[in-house]
């Protein structure tokens, strides 16, 4: 099988290098822009490695009292908001989702097929199809600019996703383990907590990461439901850099790096869970 000609090997090498360039060139430019001074970035001709590298942009955003623009000054708070919203969404999805996924994967659930179609359909429904009634309710209840509104509305896409993925993982738990527990007289809930969850722990981690990333990435609901510092999330803050502060490019790129850091670290640290999670989320275990 491994009879490759030199030409094939060269073509493969060229293709590999092109793909790596396509991936890393924009990322490198993001990083370089974030540690450059504005003057260097606006210089012509552009120097790819700017003469003055600095961490001042990070200091401006992360340390108190030094910020240049209002958005930069409040960026830290939006990071915190994002953590609160994404973290809470993940916790709710894991607890409610585990119960539902267990029934789906193991119990005699009536109308199972109907429930599955419902999960899939709601998982795929775009936010724009839900936002108008949700906006009317939130506005009339005075819930605009409240992180709780984001957590509740994020469940619309995160919960069906989590149930789908958890069910795929739970189905891989050997039934014999469960049968042993049932014979011992353990209740259904006991089986879930003492057998299924420990054995499917990698699946839980995987689902937690994906749910967190989904919520961290979310922009549309955040744009509609938040505009003040109390609830604004990171994506909204970054979008604002492009609007009102059109020239604040270093702050935008620095904010971009900070916003990308948590999902990147999670994804790279838990690399082996990502591919299995992608498959479970898309193709069912």
């Amino acid at each position: 099988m491994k009879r490759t000609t030199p030409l094939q090997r060269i073509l493969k090498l060229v293709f590999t290098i092109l793909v790596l360039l396509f991936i890393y060139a924009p990322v490198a430019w993001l990083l370089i822009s974030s540690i450059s001074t504005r003057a260097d970035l606006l210089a012509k001709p552009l120097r790819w490695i700017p003469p003055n590298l600095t961490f001042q942009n990070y200091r401006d955003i992360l340390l108190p009292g030094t910020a240049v623009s209002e958005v930069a000054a409040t960026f830290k708070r939006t990071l915190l908001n994002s953590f609160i919203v994404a973290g809470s969404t993940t916790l709710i999805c894991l607890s409610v989702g585990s119960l539902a996924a267990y029934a789906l994967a193991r119990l005699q659930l009536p109308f199972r097929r109907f429930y599955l179609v419902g999960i899939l359909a709601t998982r795929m429904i775009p936010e724009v199809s839900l936002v108008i009634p949700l906006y009317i309710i939130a506005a009339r209840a005075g819930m605009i600019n409240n992180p709780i509104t984001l957590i509740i509305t994020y469940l619309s896409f995160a919960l069906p996703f989590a149930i789908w993925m958890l069910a795929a993982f739970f189905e891989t738990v050997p039934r014999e383990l469960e049968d042993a527990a049932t014979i011992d007289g353990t209740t259904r809930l006991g089986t879930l907590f003492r057998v299924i969850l420990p054995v499917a722990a990698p699946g839980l981690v995987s689902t937690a990461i994906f749910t967190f990333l989904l919520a961290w990435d979310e922009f549309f609901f955040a744009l509609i439901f938040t505009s003040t510092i109390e609830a604004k999330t990171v994506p909204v803050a970054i979008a604002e850099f492009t609007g009102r502060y059109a020239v604040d490019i270093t702050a935008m790129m620095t904010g971009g790096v900070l916003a990308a850091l948590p999902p990147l670290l999670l994804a790279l640290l838990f690399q082996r869970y990502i591919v299995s999670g992608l498959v479970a989320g898309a193709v069912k275990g």
Partner: protein
Amino acid sequence: MTLRQREVLASLGFVLPSILIIAAVSVFPIVATFVLSFTETKIAELVPRDFVGLSNYAGYLSNATFWDTIGRTSYFTFVSVGVELLLGLAIAVLIQSHPPGWRFLRLSLIIPWAVPTIVNGALWRWIYNADYGALNALLVQSGLVERYIPWLTRPFLSLNLVILADIWHSVPFVALILQAALATIPDELEEAAAVDGATAWQRFLHVRLPLLRAAILVVLVIRTVEAFRVFDIVYVITQGGPAFGTVTISYLTYLETFSYGNLGKGSSLSFLISIFTLIMALFYFRIFYRSEPRS
């Protein structure tokens, strides 16, 4: 109560919290959107009023902007998903052939996938910048063009540049899923075909591609639904401009609802999007259900 009845009851109890939540945040809003789409509700009042029958829908169906937007969204979907599928498949096959550094390549794919969509958009907007952007600097310094090009001032070009940013973000997803599917195909199948004298291309076309069918269909459906509703990246890179050149159906809904304040008309648009999504969801369900061993 029999054991079976008790289990049925238990299972209903287990799914109840999720059903209540999904009913409140998904099912109810969809139904409400449907009802609102027959009214003339304004954002300033927030009270559904003035039943106008089908006139919101009729207004759009006879509106050139609407059809242009559908065309633009279809173009976006077709081109981005098409390129993502071909490029993703090529990368998946490349990784599966285990060239030097394939592990690093697979790890690298996670990076564009994990970068938040808004950061991705902001980054490409900066790359495309007319006066200081990296794309212009690169092209001029390498002598490919003579002077800086104002990329985002031309409608059709802008649409394609937004597609490029979307491709950067989404190719990894396609490549990783297809590579995982490729990895499950036993080498023996292809070796047998090779013994029978099949060329590499024939082996790919007749052995591996048919076995990838389910994975490709799933990827196609997921990406089509996502691309058809594209909003975030358009909002950051072009804000729908120039001259409506990058306004997609979700963006038009956003403008109609939150810029012009017509909640009724916006609802009719968003309901049309959900119809499309539901059809795709049912299609997806059929693919998956056929391959599921037990029901």
